[in-house]
Structure formats: structure tokens, C-alpha cells
């Protein structure tokens, strides 16, 4: 289904979550010192003006209009489905459509006019330079997901996640990401994959073997396993062939634009390191949540020795790379480097559309990612992103209020025995520091959550009371503290 994606899709499982907080060690120490000083002084303050961020109210009407356009593409696609094995095709296409629709229904598509205009301008630079793209009905949108990813999801829709955009260094990298995804669309990777799968599963040989297996009593699993080994289409998220093809075509598309081709290589280098985990949770948590009246407790970070040597661990066989959000980046760079070196590219610009707007969107996207994780009830993810940004902006009222709001929600979820629905559990698939945050949440009882939230917010009360998000969070924490 996700064959056309540039990278691992975040569709169902939060296990794909990867973070890449890009801050220098010096900056971290520096901001940590500021936070510590503020805490020591006992009167930390936030921006008296509140925050220069307020979450965008999603435009439901716009979402409906965009969805309508996608639906028309979907229906046109259905009309073109071959009659042979039509039912099987319909089933797969319907599944893909449901996934596309969910992106709109869950308001993952970002409807900011300014952001969309910027993205349209970026895409226009690519289509203007590549006449071959004219007449192809694809649409690019920003996704509010914090996961560093971009994907072609079907029905001509390309999603550029905020989590990826905010980490890029310049427009040329963004342009290459778009060229790569447009290539998946042009090369019909998903559609070809579906067709191949439907043909394979319905082939006489496979059906004959399936009937034989069904009729047999013994060793069904073994025989099935050997049968499916020969099938080329499956749901593996990283189809290396398709990635290589999309890389090649992406370079061809990018070379015609004013953008520097080196953007492809620097973007891949960045993707290779994008899972690096630099938020030191063991330092950050006690700094944020230690108060005189409710001191930070060691047991909040305690991790029990788990089964078979710690928490479940992943096998050794080259798994480290495959766990990355973006595997094979170094290999892809090695393949692309000589190609790029040979090409006489037309452009060398790192910015064409608007450098300031690029930076401004990156800034806003950091907040929007936090907000989207919150409204999606992915509270542990939202808390991680909030703490990460809070390191750089310790006085930001939105972030301060968000910490309280999340702790309050965790309290309410635990009270309703629904904590498992709003927070991830520690897992070997997550970065160590995110795991420590998850362990921290697991170790807290209701009274801890209530008190941590209250004493954290109380430091900013009443200075931030004029900021409604803060006031609401503070009032809720006061209510939670009452027996």
C-alpha cells in the first residue's frame, strides 16, 4: 500500500515515531542552565505576552473540498480498473481510499492558506521546469504529523510531513523530497504493485498451490511460507527497487529546476541521521518536574530489569538500519553521488521561493506537530515534542501550558483506565530518551501526575493567568489535586 512512499509510513503504528532534535550540546547545556537558574530562583517566568503561537483552526470546509477532489480521482481510477479480477482490485483500492480519506477526516492535512501557497509555489518551480509533469493530477499538502516523513498515499496525494520539513536545511532539500515523491506517483509504483499482487495471487499456479495446501492436513504453514516467498508484492514498507527508481527520476526532475542538485545528497545525509536522539530525558525530567513541595523522586525514572536482559530487544541481524525511519540512506547516497557529479545541472540555488517563509513555517511546524499529536490523543508524543522545544524556548507560554495540559490529560486518562489509549509503552523500537519519558509516565500514579502538573504550573501562576490555555490547565490541575 505504501510502496510509493519515500520512507516508512506512520499510518497505523506509533512505533514509527522517530525524532531528531537538532540542537548543539552547547545550546542544550546553555538552555538547561537557564531553566535550572529559573527553578533555583523559585520564580520562573514565561513570556508575559503569552506565546507567539496559536494553533491553526483547521478549515473544515476546505478539507471537504479537497477530499471531494480526491474522491473524484478515486472514482476515475475505479473506472479504469480491469474487469479481470476486478473484485480483488476494488478491495485493495478501497483500502487505499479509506487511508487517504482518514487523512482528511482526522484533519491531518494542514489547511493554512499561507503554508499551502508556499508549498504550491515550491511545486510550481518543479512543474514549471519539467513540462512532463503538466497534466498529471497530483496534489501536495503539508501533513501535521511530527514524524519525519513524506509519502505518496494514492489518489494523486503527496504528503509532506511537518516533522520532516522542519528539519530540512533549505528549499533545495524540500524540492528534492517533492521530486522523489512525484516520481513515485509518475512511475505508478503503487498501482503497478497492486496489479502485480492481484495477478500473482490469482495466477493459476498460486491458486492451484493454495487449493493443494487447503486440501492437505499437514505442514500447511511451511508450504504457505515457501509459496509466499516467491511473491513479489507484499506490504513491506521499503521497496528498495522503487526507492532507487524514485531517486533517479527525482534527480532528473530536480536538475531542470533552479535548485542545487546537492540538495538530494544533503537531504539523504540528513535523513540518515534523523533518528539521532539528543534530548537528554534523564536531565530534562528532573529539571522540569522538581519542586520544593513535591520533589522529584528517583523511582519515577526507575526501570525494572525486563525479560531476557532488559526490555525486549531486537535481533542482531542488520536490524539496526531497518528500524530507522529512513533505511539505506548511505547506500542511496553512494548510488546518487556519481550520477549527480556527471550531470550538468541548471540550478545552484538553495532558496528560490522564500527563505524567510521557509524559516517561519519551520518555526510554526514545531508547534503544530505538538498540537496535532495532542488533538490526536498521542499525549506521550506530544509531551516529548513539547519538552524538546521547551529546551530552546523555556519561557514560551504555549509550551508551559501544553506541559500542564498534557499532564492533566494523562491524569484523567489514568483515572478512567484509558492510559494505554493515549500513551505509548516503552519499546526497543523507540529512541532511548523517548523510552525514558514513557517509563516515567508508566511509573507515575494519579497523585503524582496531579501534583507534578500543579507544582509545575504553579511556578507560572499568576503571571500567565491572562493566557487562557494556561489558566485552563492550571485550574484543571487544582481540581485534580483536590481529594
Amino acid at each position, binding site marked *: 500500500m505504501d510502496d510509493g512512499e519515500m520512507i516508512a509510513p506512520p499510518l497505523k503504528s506509533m512505533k514509527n515515531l522517530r525524532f531528531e532534535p537538532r540542537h548543539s550540546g552547547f545550546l542544550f547545556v546553555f538552555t538547561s542552565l537557564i531553566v535550572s537558574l529559573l527553578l533555583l530562583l523559585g520564580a520562573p517566568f514565561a513570556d508575559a505576552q503569552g506565546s507567539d503561537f496559536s494553533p491553526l483552526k483547521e478549515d473544515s470546509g476546505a478539507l471537504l473540498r479537497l477530499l471531494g477532489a480526491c474522491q473524484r480521482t478515486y472514482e476515475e481510477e475505479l473506472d479504469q480498473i480491469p474487469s479481470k479480477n476486478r473484485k480483488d482490485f476494488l478491495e485493495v483500492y478501497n483500502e487505499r481510499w479509506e487511508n487517504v480519506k482518514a487523512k482528511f477526516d482526522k484533519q491531518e492535512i494542514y489547511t493554512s492558506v499561507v503554508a499551502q501557497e508556499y508549498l504550491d509555489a515550491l511545486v510550481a518551480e518543479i512543474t514549471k521546469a519539467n513540462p512532463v509533469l503538466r497534466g498529471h493530477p497530483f496534489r501536495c499538502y503539508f501533513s501535521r504529523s511530527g514524524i519525519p516523513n513524506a509519502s505518496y498515499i494514492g489518489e494523486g496525494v503527496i504528503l509532506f510531513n511537518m516533522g520532516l520539513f522542519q528539519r530540512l536545511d533549505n528549499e533545495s532539500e524540500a524540492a528534492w523530497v517533492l521530486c522523489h515523491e512525484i516520481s513515485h506517483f509518475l512511475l505508478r509504483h503503487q498501482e503497478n504493485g497492486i496489479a502485480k499482487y492481484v495477478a500473482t495471487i490469482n495466477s493459476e499456479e498460486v491458486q492451484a498451490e493454495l487449493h493443494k495446501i487447503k486440501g492437505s492436513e499437514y505442514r500447511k504453514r511451511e508450504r504457505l511460507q515457501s509459496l509466499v516467498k516467491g511473491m513479489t508484492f507484499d506490504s513491506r514498507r521499503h521497496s528498495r527497487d522503487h526507492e532507487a527508481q524514485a531517486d533517479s527520476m527525482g534527480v532528473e526532475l530536480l536538475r531542470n529546476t533552479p535548485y542545487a542538485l546537492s540538495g538530494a545528497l544533503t537531504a539523504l545525509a540528513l535523513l540518515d541521521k534523523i533518528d539521532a536522539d539528543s534530548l537528554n530525558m534523564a536531565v530534562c525530567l528532573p529539571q522540569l518536574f522538581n519542586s520544593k513541595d513535591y520533589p522529584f523522586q528517583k523511582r519515577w525514572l526507575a526501570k525494572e530489569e525486563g525479560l*531476557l536482559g532488559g526490555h525486549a530487544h531486537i535481533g542482531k541481524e542488520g536490524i539496526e538500519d531497518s528500524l530507522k525511519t529512513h533505511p539505506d540512506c548511505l547506500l542511496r547516497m553512494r548510488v546518487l553521488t556519481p550520477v549527480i557529479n556527471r550531470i550538468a545541472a541548471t540550478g545552484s540555488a538553495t532558496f528560490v521561493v522564500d527563505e524567510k517563509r521557509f524559516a517561519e513555517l519551520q518555526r510554526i511546524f514545531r508547534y503544530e506537530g505538538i498540537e496535532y499529536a495532542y488533538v490526536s490523543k498521542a499525549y506521550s508524543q506530544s509531551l516529548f515534542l513539547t519538552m524538546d522545544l521547551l529546551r530552546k524556548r523555556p519561557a514560551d507560554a504555549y509550551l508551559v501550558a501544553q506541559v500542564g495540559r498534557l499532564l492533566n490529560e494523562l491524569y484523567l486518562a489514568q483515572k478512567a483506565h484509558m492510559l494505554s489509549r493515549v500513551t505509548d*509503552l516503552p519499546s526497543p523500537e523507540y529512541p532511548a530518551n523517548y523510552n525514558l519519558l514513557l517509563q516515567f509516565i508508566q511509573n507515575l500514579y494519579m497523585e503524582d501526575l496531579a501534583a507534578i502538573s500543579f507544582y509545575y504550573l504553579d511556578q507560572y501562576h499568576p503571571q500567565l493567568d491572562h493566557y487562557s490555555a494556561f489558566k485552563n490547565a492550571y485550574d484543571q490541575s487544582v481540581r485534580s489535586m483536590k481529594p
Partner: protein
Amino acid sequence: MLTRKTILSRLFLAAVLFSQPFRSLHAQSRLSIDKVYSAYLRNSGSILEKGRIKGYFFLYQSDKIDRHTNEYTLQILDENLNKVKNIKFEDSKKLSLLESAYNGSTISFLFKNEDNKTLDMKIYDFDGKMKYAYSREFDKKTDDLMKQYETLHTDEGMNKNVFDLGDEGFVSVLPMREGKARTYEVDFYSSQTKKQWTYVPSDDAEKYAFAEYLGCTDSLIILEVMKRNHALSGDVTSHLVGINFVTKKKQFDIDNINDTKIMVPSSVTPMDGTGNIMVMGSFFEKGDNIVKDFSKGLAIYEISTAGKVLTKTYNTWAGDFARYLPTNSKGKIDEVGFLYIHKLIRTPDHKLFVVGEGYKRQANAAGIALAVLARGNTPMGVTKIVVTDMVIMEFDDKYKVRNATIYDKTNNTAIASNISDYNSQHLLANYLKMTGAFDYEFTTGDEGNANFAVCYSDWVRSSDYKGQTFNSIRYNGKKFTTDKIELKSKASTLRVFPAKAGSIMILEYYKKDKRLDFRLEKLG
């Protein structure tokens, strides 16, 4: 009694082991993978280390190999429900997984193989490779054990017969029966070398003996053994038996015979720093019949690893407990009835908490009516036994009771047959324990028990809610709070497992979707 306790042991799961790499197709003459292949969940349970949850096991029948052999996949999850290992092996089609334990470096599984009539202990290492396999035959002698497994677990999800001995390996305590003789055996399984030995009690009195595992130290397996010595009076005597698994010999056998008071041990806990062991149980006056008479109260002993009794403290129902609970001299508490002790919990600040549950005999209206109609010829008793409230008692560092609190719950019927008409309170309590009729489920806590939660089920009939609930009484180091989870669910079956400290694991099976969901929830 409760639907939870009749969880089906065989769940049907479609293609659980195939992680959906294939689309399902429904053309009539066409086949898809999920129409060709299914896996069956045979058994599931908890993996424990020193009574603490370390993970879960799920045994699937993943294939049939031939008429007598199946392929199995043993899926191991950690305490956070992450998949740790899938272990594939072939074995008899009549295989079931009875219990599992973990000792920090290896994991043991006790299988019952009905084809070979063997109990197989398999020990796996960190990489999921089998290190050692031990096998012993089962026959008529172990019928009682098999019956025990066929009935319901007493403490839901907790082990009954297999326990870890730290780095040394594992132990199982098996009830044995031959003719009229009832005895027991203790099997030791090494996880360090291929070594297994069996302790068989040798004295005459132990030809009629019931043993229950109470705990272990770094060298001792500690059992409570009830013996009937026909050579003497024929009375039942209670013993605290320590078996040294280094020397393979009995280290001590404390019987109180020469004492003025007799203790029937029910719980032991190692004492930090001293190497000594704390033992708790009911006590009786010398000459009392420990089966028929009422206990006088609760006793707490400190003993050394050599078996020397260092201190003895007694708390009487009529004196000490009466200050905190409305008890009579027979140990019966108003409205609560008699108390069965489930758990002894020692906290880092040297407080001792004891968890009890009430049970009492009541008139059985239906039984009486039936007895009248059938002129007494009915298996239904004219009385019934109900399990009543939970009681938590607090003891100070001198082991004297300092507080006791009754936690109200529904009086749930535990026995409605004529068993309730004729038996003593002790036999009834043992019967309730054996058949899993108490509502107490388990206690979960962090290491050292600074925080712990006592969990029990209940059946609520109120105007707001009618159905099963799961309840906890949680101690946070300062005070107790209670929590209740209403367990009404759209799932076909629902089961609550013990989980890591402060949490429970809820497993729900949706028959229509052939879906098994499990999640961890924190107790509030």
C-alpha cells in the same frame, strides 16, 4: 462464579502468526491465505520472577506435522507487551503449557505431554534457544496435580507449582497420590548445568502429606506441609519444612509439637539484611485440632535459615484484633465471617500488611426449598458459603496489629453444594482456595513493596452498574486508596492478568473478528 473464571482455554485466531502481508480475497472459487491457514492459541499465562511479572507467554498451534505431531510457536512478550521471541518447535499434538517462570537469565516452561505421559520442563536462554530439557513421567500418582491444573488457578495468572530459585534454576512442587497415601515431591531443575534431582519425603508421617510452596531463599525451598501421622493419633499436624537445594537435604522441619501454641504457616518472606525468614500463619492452643477447631489468632515467627525459631509474636482475635475489628473469640468477624489470609507484605519502613478475605456459611434458600421437595435427596446444600469483604491489617515492627480496615464487597456465593453443610471452616477455606472461589486475585507492587496494590474481582448489582468489576486497594507508602474498573466489554471473553507494578493487563478476545487485544492499564 464469575464469567472471568470460565475463560475458554482454546481461542481461535486467524492467521495470527502471519503479520498480514497478504490481502484477503473473497472470490468464490479463489483462495486467499487467511482462508487456507489458521493458528490456534492453546495456552496463555504470565511469566514470573520471584512473584513479580516479567512477561507473558502465548502458545500457538502453528501447524500440523503428522497424525501425532504439531508444530507450536511459543510467543514471549515482555512486561510492556513487546514481542521478545517466537520459539518454534514440534511436539505431541496433546501438548499443553502449564506454567512458566523466569530467573533473570533463563526462562522455564512446564509442558504436559499426554502422548508420552510426561511432564517436560524446558529451559531457554536469552536468545530463545533451549538450554536444557528435563522430562519426568506422570501417572496415576500425579492425578491430583493434573486435576489442579484442570481446575481454575487460585490466584489468577499466578504460578502454583513452578517457581524460580534465582540463578540456580527452578523448582516445582508436585502433589502425589498412590492408593490412600498422599504425598509430594520437589523437583529441582538447574539452569546452569544439565542437572535435575527430586526430593522425596522419607518419613512415615509424610505418606499422608500435603505440601504447598511458600517461598525460597538463596539456598532453601520453604514449604508448608500438613501431615497425618497414623502411627500416632492420626491427627493432622502442620510443619514448616526447609529443603536445602545445595545439599539436596531437608534442612529443618518445624512442627511446634512441643510448643504451647501451634502455628499453621501460610506465608513467608525473607527479611532484608538478616538472612532470616519471617513466617506468618494462624495459631492454635496446644491440643487443639488444627482442622476442626477455630484458630486463636495470627502468629508471626522469625526463623533463621538453620530453622531456629528466633522470635514468636501472637495476635489474638479476641484481644488484639478486637480493638480494630468486631471479632469474637472464634475469630469470626461480624458480617465478614472467618478470615482467610492471602498475602503478607512487608514494606521498606518495616510495616507489615496482611491481606485477608472473609468467608462464611449462610442459609441457602434454594437448597432448603429443593431439600424439602426432594426429601433431602439433593446435591444442593441447605447452606452455602459466601466470600465476603477484604480485610487489610497493619502490624508494627514488633509484629503487633496496629490497624485493620474492612473493604466492603458483595457477598458472592462460592459453594452452593452440600460440601458446605458438613465441613469445618479450615477445610472449606482450603477448598475455596483450591477451586479459585475467593475473589482475591493477586498483589502487584514495586520492588521492596513501597507501593503495592491488592487486587480482587467482584460482582456488582447496583442501579448504575450490574456486572463484573476489577478492584484494587493501593498503598502508596502513606495511605490506601481504592479503585474499581467495570469490566463490561464488547469482547467475547475478557481476562485480567497481573502486570508490572501498579498495572494490570486486560486481554480481550473478539470472536467475530478473530481478534485478540491486550493492553496494560494503570491502577488508580
